């Protein structure tokens, strides 16, 4: 496809806007009172941007793009690939993809599609992702490749789709999902030319992620205690896919003593639920802080649900490992796109019985239907329990900040009473 000079100029303009967004957010973060130099690692990863070739260079192996956390990361690692979850938090990048997309749509993927256009323009055929792995979670994820094509991006890389059963509890759907995981294994084997199953590599990879999860759990506990603030929690978890998991883990470990030294923040504890939060759009995290609310728990797939961890298995054969991964990533997932999801709501409510938080803030990105639909269920259930709930509907623009802040401030008052 030929690119006109005008298109190029638009692209470059948007690229510089994206850079500005990132720089602005990073300088905001660096000026914070709870900034310390160990956090530079994460900020540097994020400021280097979502360029596939940069990431591939950094991790020193081919990068496979994936759209959702439903595909076991351990498998990619076992086949010598680096999994990178595609996301977008840039408002500027959305302007590149918007003309070819529905008006009401997930702002995250709109932005991601814009960023991908920028990336493919610079990476060309030599760089880019080695393959695409797309689990069919929400409608936006199902239609992703189509949208990418509509945005004028031809994908020449292999694509593997995983059909996600939207029922978790039935034996039949668990069986089907296990087949899908076998399918992914075969795909990765073909892709990397390692057709012979390598049980040992998979077990080692799982052990690495288990260890990373342990470190991540320590970080989560610091959030529970109010020592890790919302914005940093997002920064650290967002940078997870930008580097080798072991390096990231070591960097997180280095921050732990620093966060432990910090005094616990004041303000009522809240549970942040709903659509994910992605750098550089930390608007909601900043507003929550400005309103004096302290996020101690969340169930965002961008932070606490980053990777499942805790994959127990008592059958160390290759089949046993794949089965454990399949089950852990499927039936343990709390994404709202599932049909039998009572456990998701339960999991939000149950920490309140132990007085771990005082209210729930539910963020919906406009166009994110599964979360929007579910917010009604959650509101009803929470109110039945006598708990406070606020839903904030927003997108990546900043013009509603004042309105949101007013609401969050008033919400804080209701938590005090």
């Amino acid at each position, binding site marked *: 496809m030929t690119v006109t000079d005008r298109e190029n100029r638009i692209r470059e303009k948007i690229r510089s806007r994206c850079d500005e967004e990132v720089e602005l957010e990073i300088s905001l973060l660096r000026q914070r009172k709870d900034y310390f130099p160990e956090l530079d690692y994460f900020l540097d990863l994020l400021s280097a941007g979502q360029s596939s070739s940069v990431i591939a260079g950094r991790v020193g192996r081919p990068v496979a793009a994936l759209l959702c956390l439903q595909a076991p990361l351990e498998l990619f690692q076992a086949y010598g690939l680096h999994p990178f979850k595609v996301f977008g938090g840039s408002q500027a990048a959305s302007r590149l993809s918007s003309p070819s997309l529905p008006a009401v749509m997930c702002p995250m993927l709109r932005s991601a599609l814009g960023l991908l256009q920028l990336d493919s323009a610079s990476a060309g055929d030599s760089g880019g992702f080695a393959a695409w792995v797309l689990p069919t979670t929400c409608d936006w994820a199902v239609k992703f490749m189509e949208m990418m094509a509509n945005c004028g991006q031809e994908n020449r890389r292999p694509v593997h789709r995983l059909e996600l059963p939207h029922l978790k509890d039935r034996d039949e759907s668990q069986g089907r999902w296990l087949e899908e995981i076998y399918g992914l294994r075969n795909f990765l084997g073909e892709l990397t030319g390692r057709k012979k199953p390598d049980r040992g590599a998979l077990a080692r990879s799982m052990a690495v992620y288990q260890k990373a*999860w*342990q470190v991540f759990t320590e970080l989560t506990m610091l959030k529970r205690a109010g020592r890790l603030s919302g914005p940093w929690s997002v920064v650290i978890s967002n940078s997870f896919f930008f580097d080798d998991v072991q390096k990231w883990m070591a960097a997180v470990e280095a921050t732990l003593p620093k966060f432990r030294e910090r005094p616990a923040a004041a303000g009522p504890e809240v549970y942040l639920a709903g659509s994910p939060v992605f750098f550089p759009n930390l608007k909601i995290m900043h507003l929550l802080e400005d309103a004096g609310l302290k996020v101690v728990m969340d169930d965002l797939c961008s932070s606490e649900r980053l990777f*499942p961890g805790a994959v127990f298995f008592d059958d160390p*054969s290759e089949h046993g490992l794949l089965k*454990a991964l399949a089950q852990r990533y499927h039936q343990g997932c709390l994404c709202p796109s599932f049909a039998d999801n009572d456990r998701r709501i*339960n*999991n939000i409510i*149950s920490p309140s019985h132990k007085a771990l938080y005082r209210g729930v803030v539910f963020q919906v990105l406009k166009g994110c239907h599964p979360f929007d639909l579910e917010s009604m269920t959650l509101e009803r259930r929470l109110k039945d329990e006598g708990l406070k709930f606020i839903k904030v509907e927003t997108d990546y623009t900043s013009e509603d900040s004042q309105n949101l802040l007013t609401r969050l401030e008033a919400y804080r008052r209701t938590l005090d009473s």
Partner: protein
Amino acid sequence: MTIKRFRLVTQHLAFAVLTYGGHFKISLGSAIPCLSCPFIGSCGGGCYLMAFQRAMSWLFLPLFQLIDGAGSWEQVWQTFSYFLSGFGIFVIVVILFGKSWCGWLCPFGLLQDWMTRLRQALKLREAELSNRHKRVVSKLKYVLLAYLIAMPVMVSLGWLPRDFVLAFCNICPAKPLMPIFVGDFHHLGITANGDARSIFSILLMIITGGMVAGMFFKERFFCLLCPMMALINLLKPFYLLKVVKEPEACQGCGNCRRGCCMDNETSYRERIKPNVYDPDCSGCFNCAESCASDGSLAVKFGPFKIFSSSRRYAAKLFAKVKP
């Protein structure tokens, strides 16, 4: 120390005491609720099933005599109270430790765990039993329980020869396998007398062969069929040691089900009740230990919580897993 490690140590101690205790004058009686085989010469405490089968062969005699017009109620009561002196001990120890007799103390259970370890070390795939089939197989233990009661009773009626008193022991794979650990290969082989014994010995060898294969490819396969478990199950409402669930805190990740040595589903499926003691539970508490949801599964002794699942504990446990 993790529960896993603690259990492993306890299992080996129990194995040593129950298998070699006789040499050191340890005698824990004959009402032990696990397969501690009395055919071992130095057995430190006998499997209650043997005493139970024996009791079945005389317990109803005075009653039958009474029906025939002989004997007296006094004799019936005397026999019965004698039976209760043994059964009572069994009941008390079962109430104390519940199913954990199977998972923590049973020597035959440990033998099965060794076989599982061997399979795991060889990285061989575990055989899978679908839920539907498992439900059927697991019912067989009640059939076996009925069998081990019916046979000695029939002996007492004179319908069967005395060889049928220990009808279950005669087909129990622990009988030929456990004495091996004290160097006794006596029960391994076929007796060629042409009577009931030799039929039993052929049957036993077939069963043992099948069980060894089953136990190697499926963790604790015999437990699924064990009539001791069926007998312990009868006291289920009274256990002091048990696993409880807070269904609201459950994320549904399935760790408990995968961790379960019996592949039970109850702890994973349960959405309302706190009681998740499955009839096939062996009381090992792997479920609570592998659960990464804070407070979702807990081990209780009477009213006291002695362990509660937590994300942190699970994180530490899993970080130790060797590839």
